[in-house]
Structures are given as C-alpha cells and as structure tokens.
C-alpha cells in the first residue's frame, strides 16, 4: 500500500457548468462564490458534442474578476492542435497570474470527427494514448523557454538569451512539433494537468502526466482502490506518487436543505446514477462525508458538481465548506497565490535547463 493516510491537506473543487449559459455574468458569479469558500479550483467542461461555450475562453474572462481560485477548463486533444492548446493554457496561466489548470479530454464520437473532417472516430485507448502525447508535448513546450530567457541586455542589443530557448523536436505517433513555443514559460512552470480517470483507458495517461486525477466513485472502497492503482502506476512511470492528487468526483444535490441524507444513500454516502455518483442531502451531512473519506485516506479531496449550480454551490460554500473550516479541516484563506500552491505541488524544474536555475526564479 502506497497511500499516505489522511495526512495531506484537504482539497476541494467545484464545477461551474451551466450548459445553456453563454454570457459571462453567471460564470463570474459562481467562480467568485467558489473563491469566497477558498476552493482550490473551479472546472468548466467542454465538448464539441453538445451545446456550450469554449471553456478556456470563459475562464479567461473569469480570470480578471477573481484573484485566487484556480481555473481549470476542459480542452480536448483529439481534433485540436497541440501547439495551440498549450499556448492557450499557458496564456490562461499568464492572464490569471499562475492559476491555470487544464482538464484533458478526448473526442470519441464519429459525430465530433465529422465536425472536423480530418479523421474518423478511433477507440478510446488510442485517443488517450494520443492525449498523453499532447500532455507530454505541452509540458515540453512550456519548458521550451527557460524562466530567465528574457534578458533585455542593453550592451549586446539582445532581448533574449537564445541558448535558453529550445527546439523540442517531438515526434509522436500522430503528430510532430518542432518548437519552441511562442509563449514564454508560464508562471507556474507547468499549469496543472487534470484527468478524469474513471474509465480505465484514461488511467495510464493520468498516472503518467496528471497532477490531479478525478475519479467518479460511489463508494469509499472504490475510490480508494482507484487511488491506490493510480499511485502505483505513477510510481512505475518514475513519479513520486505524492505529486498526485486524487479527488473523488460527485454530483451534489443539496436541495433538501438541512434534512438528513435520503434513505438509500448509504448513510449520507453517494449513490450511483446514470449521470455518475450523486450525493443528495444536506450540506452538513456532505461535510461529514468529505471529512470521513479524507481522514480515512480514501482520497485527497473532492470535485463537486452542483446539480443546481447557483443553489447548490451557495449551500456548499456557506454550509459544507464553512463547517469543514470550523472544524479545522479546510483552509479559511489562501496562503498561496497559484493553483500549484493551493494543491501543495512544487513548481517543476525545467527539463531543458542545464543548471538548477529553473526552479522558482
């Protein structure tokens, strides 16, 4: 067993998804609410398969209206250009001053393939292997500028030290990228990469490249099993498993106010539904569930998707989070300013830097 039981800080995140909303206002409002609760980050899903705005654009709009909360849009890797994706994520990190994450996802349907007309649908296994390559190439491009590449040297007239910009010469199975990036290394070095590894096909990519892994699990045992598997796989690929944060992903319906969790929810635990594991009950019982799973070392935290965004997020922040704070289980303010700091993850060294000068310059 590789788990470090219940020792880590508790991490909380919330989804802002409101599929029929295209104006900025409601997203800004919810993100600010999440920030008021001290949440690590908010997510916004994205797919070409259903109506909804470009998630990264929405969160770039949210960035100047918030100051601490992490911003994690989904950006898919199947029909997009890896170079553009990494540049957009790096830019989100710049405009948010170090609060960007990227939830990596694939486009598996033939319907999505027809929107682009460049390739046919492919098996999930293959798409996730490619997603891993995109995650890899993105990190290389983020590193392709060393932190101190910009020198503005008056004497020699040089703006950059070109020895600190690097071609990456990446050759993947389906694409190649020469580099370097056009965007200087983002504030976090690497924006936080997030993968939902509930499906087995995504797990290898998650263990290898993700900083945060989401697992839709209806029971503590199931969540713990996936977490152990991910930590073992991370160790196998040469990573320190403690650089991985595994969050249980739940739908939450707090519409019943302070009433106890519905019978059949397993004593306040979640229940499997067609949309994923759902917790339905009051904010206080949800706090109990969060505290219990975290203390038992089942997960490092929770990613919660409100069923009724405004109502449930408000109850989550004012009820569940407030209670966890009161019990000393969750932060009452942000001690750091970047998403990596919220998650307790170090700023990565630059793989291309010759000296140790790449960290936190």
């Amino acid at each position, binding site marked *: 067993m590789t788990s470090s039981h219940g020792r880590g800080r508790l991490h909380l995140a919330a989804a802002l998804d409101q599929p029929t909303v295209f104006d900025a206002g409601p997203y800004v409002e919810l993100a600010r609410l999440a920030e008021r609760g001290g949440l690590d980050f908010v997510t916004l899903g994205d797919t*070409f398969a259903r109506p909804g705005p470009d998630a990264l654009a929405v969160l770039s709009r949210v960035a100047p209206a918030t100051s601490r909360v992490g911003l994690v849009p989904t950006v898919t890797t199947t029909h997009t250009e890896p170079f553009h994706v990494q540049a957009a994520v790096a830019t989100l990190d710049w*405009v948010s001053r170090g609060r960007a994450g990227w939830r990596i996802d694939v486009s598996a349907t033939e319907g999505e393939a*027809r929107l682009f007309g460049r390739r046919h649908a492919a098996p999930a296994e293959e798409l996730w292997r490619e997603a891993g390559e995109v995650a890899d190439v993105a990190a290389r491009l983020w590193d392709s500028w060393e932190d101190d590449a910009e020198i503005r040297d008056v004497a020699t007239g040089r703006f950059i030290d070109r020895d600190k910009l690097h071609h990456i010469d990446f050759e993947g199975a389906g694409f190649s990228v020469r580099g370097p990036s056009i965007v200087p290394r983002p504030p976090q070095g690497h924006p936080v990469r997030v993968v939902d590894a509930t499906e087995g096909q995504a797990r290898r990519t998650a263990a290898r490249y993700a900083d945060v892994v989401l697992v839709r699990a209806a029971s503590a045992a199931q969540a713990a099993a996936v977490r152990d598997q991910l930590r073992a796989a991370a160790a196998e690929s040469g990573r320190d498993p403690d650089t991985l944060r595994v969050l249980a992903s739940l739908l939450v319906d707090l519409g019943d106010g302070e009433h106890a969790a519905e019978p059949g929810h397993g004593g306040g635990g979640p229940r499997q539904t067609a949309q994923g594991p759902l917790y339905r009950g009051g904010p206080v019982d949800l706090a109990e569930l969060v505290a219990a799973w975290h203390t038992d070392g089942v997960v490092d935290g929770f990613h919660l998707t409100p069923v009724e965004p405004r109502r449930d997020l408000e109850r989550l922040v004012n009820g569940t989070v407030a209670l966890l704070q009161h019990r000393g289980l969750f932060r009452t303010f942000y001690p750091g300013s970047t998403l990596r700091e919220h998650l307790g993850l170090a700023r990565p060294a630059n793989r291309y830097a010759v000296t140790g000068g790449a960290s936190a310059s």
Partner: protein
Amino acid sequence: MTVRSRKEIHLAAHFPGVDNTTVRADPRSRSQIDLSSFEHLARTAERGLFDFFFLAEGLRPREHKDRIHDLDVVGRPESLTVLGALAGVTERLGLAATVNATFNEPYELARRFATLDHLSGGRAGWNVVTSSDAFTGENFRRGGFLDRAERYTRAAEFVEVARTLWDSWTPDGVSRPFAHRGRHFDIAGEFTVPRSPQGHPVVIQAGDSGEGREFAAATADVVFSGWGSGGCPPGRHGTRYGSLEAGRAFYADVKRRLAKYGREPGDLKIMPGVGVVLGDTAAEAQERATEIRRQQVSPQNAILALEQIWGVDLSAYDPDGPLPEIDPVADSVITQGRTRRGDTVVIAEKWRALSKEKGLSIRETVIEAGARQSFIGTPDAVAAELEEFVRRDAADGFILLPHLTPGGLDEFVDRVVPLLQERGVFRTEYRGSTLRSHLGLERPEDRGRSGRSTSGHPSNPDDRRGRGARCGERRRVVSGREEA
C-alpha cells in the same frame, strides 16, 4: 440617425508587442506578456473611444542564420485568450485578433470567436491571415505549406464555413444542422454556440495584393492595409501629396470591387496601419521620430536587416561604414518565419542608391529606408492630416501602431482625440455596444439553412505585390504575421 455632413473617422490600436517596432530601450518600456500591459493599452483605447483593439499572432519565433533571432522583442501570449480576459476589463471596446486560417480548422475557430462575441457582448473581430510557410508548419499537425493561390481559396472557404456555422442557429435559439463540402473542408453536424450578439464577428483582412483586395471586397468588413496601394507614409519617400493620392487610388480600387459582390461602399472600412509621433513643435516631433528610429534600428539590427536583404552573413561589416560591394543572393533562406518582402535584389539596388545619394552608413540607410512613422507633427497638425485623409477618401480610419508597451497610446488619446472631436469627425461617446455598431456595419441578417455561400472567391489573382515593394522592408510587418 441624423445625416452627418462630415465623414467620421474610425480608430483602432494594434498591440505593439514584438519585433523591433517596439522600442524596448525606452525606460518606460514594460512587459509584452503581462496582462497589465494589455490592460493598460486596452483601457487607454477605450478611454479614447476607439473602435477596436487588435492583437497580432505568433506561431514560431523567427530564426536567422539557423539560430533563434535574439535582437528583438519576442514571445507573446495567445491572442484569443488575452481578449477573453480583456473582455472582463473593458465594456465597449472592440476586441480583435489575428488568427491564421492555414493552421486552424473552421469548426474550432468559429466556435472560439462566437464564444468571445458572447462573452464580450458583441465585440469580437477576426483578422484572417494565411501562411505559406513550411517553417511555421513544423509546429502543426497539418505541417507543410500552401502555395499562394491555395492560401486565398482556403481562407475564402474558411470564412464561408465560419459564417455558415455562425448562422446555423436561428435567432430564437434553435440549433440547425449544417453541412459543407468544398475543396478544403468537408464537414457536417451541429454548432455548439447559439447565434452571437453580432451575428457574425467582424472579419478583417490584412494585405494589399490583388488577391487580398479581391478577398476583402468579397468577404471582409475591414481592410487593415499597408499604406494605400503601395503608397508611402508622409514624411518619407515622396511627398505627403503622393501618399494621399496613393491612398485615394487604393481606396477607390477596393471600394469599386464591392459592387460585383452586391455590397455597398460603406460595407467595407479601409483602415491603414499608421504610426504617429507627436511633438510640441513640428521640429520636436521630427526629432522624436528620428530618435525612435535610432532606437528601433540598433547597430546589430542594422546588420540583421542588411543580411535579410543580401541573404548572406554580413557580421564582419561595420554598421557605421558603407554598404557591401557584393551582390545579394536571390532566394536565400537566411531568415525564417518572416514575411517575404519581394525582390531583394531590387531592394538592395535601391538601398545602395539611397546610400550613395545621401552619403549614408549602413545603419543610416536602414533607418532611412525602413522608416514608417506616418504622421509626425504637432497634435493639431496630425489631427488635421488624419481628417484630410479620411475626408478625401484615402481611408475610413486608421489602425495605430504604437511603438511603446504599454504607454504608446496615452499621448494620442490625451492630445489628438479631443482635437478630432472638436473638428466633429470623431465620436464623443460610444453610441452602440457592439463592434459592428462602432464601425457602422449592419448586423448580418440570418442567412438561414439554404441561403449561405454569399462569399465569393477572388477571381483575379493578378497583381501579386501591387506596387508594394517600393515602400521598403517594413511595410508588410503590419500584417500581424511578423513572427509567423
């Protein structure tokens, strides 16, 4: 709307960003990356009631002599993401970005612009450019390159598909399936974004060539031109009268082309990219312009500019000495990632002639030949000139190219805008909330499921460079592709 006796000027600002346009030796120079720099410029443009703010695109740092070019400001954030953030710190200002049609796919890009249009309440604009550049292609799945003719057919079809997608939802919010089969794209399905506040984000076209003009007449809402049809900015080659006349000729030529696409002259705004240098006296403005040019062309930069023309290593030459006696190498690839600039042999001859005529050193020749401050003078004189160019149909407005990040617009907004307002040729408040309303463009009607394909294809791909080359090396830099 009342009938105005005077033609109103439209104003936009281009983020100076990268390249040696941006003077970084100035102590007031700040980051070209931080949001605070973009915010300052955008807020200043909005304070000045500008139509829009405009970001260029970079897809690969330039290389010179097989090494990454290190003399100029380089590195920039991705434009659409920056504009998303700027939508949150401005209220009325149009927000435009250059995005390449060669290394993107219509579905995704149309979606990103439609999203920006929603998030900004109808302020999005897209400068469509194409690339023929295999060097840039090395960063993309598509790879490779397109020959020049293919670039314009792809761009035309790209814009047509984007508009089909933007039109695919009914105004009352019902998604309708689309299908498009053409030479470059064969796609079908449903769009994920409802019709945006402007219906169609504003489409801008940069470039003065024959194909570019035809593409603009068929498709664009705004032309971001060099100076007229190869005309040169005032205060440079030739006379101010010469550039006014060249601007008038370009303007008339482009507007004349609109009719065959069933469009009115007012449907397309012509906005040349210009620099402005102000002073309390004409002499002081000239002095400042000269100093800016010296800052832009360092001794090292002068040699580099020369190498780009001559196509060989000239590092042994003294920037303060005479031009090389040797002849340039045609079709050299010494510099990668920079827009081609026509016949280098011809340019080299001109530079030699210029150097001989005026007794100029290498650096002085580069400064003289590449100058592009367009309007140099007192605020009164500049306001009068801007008005004259618009009144006499050499332009509908201007895209300012400031040379300083982030303060490069401050003086213009503080000193020239009020004079334009006094003259009654520039708005004193925003009348509408969308970029289309600022530009006086109609909101496109819903073309519906069957009535698409209004865009034409450039039918006359002649006149490759127009008369552009005589303006020297810098003029195409304004195409927003300086790094790509």
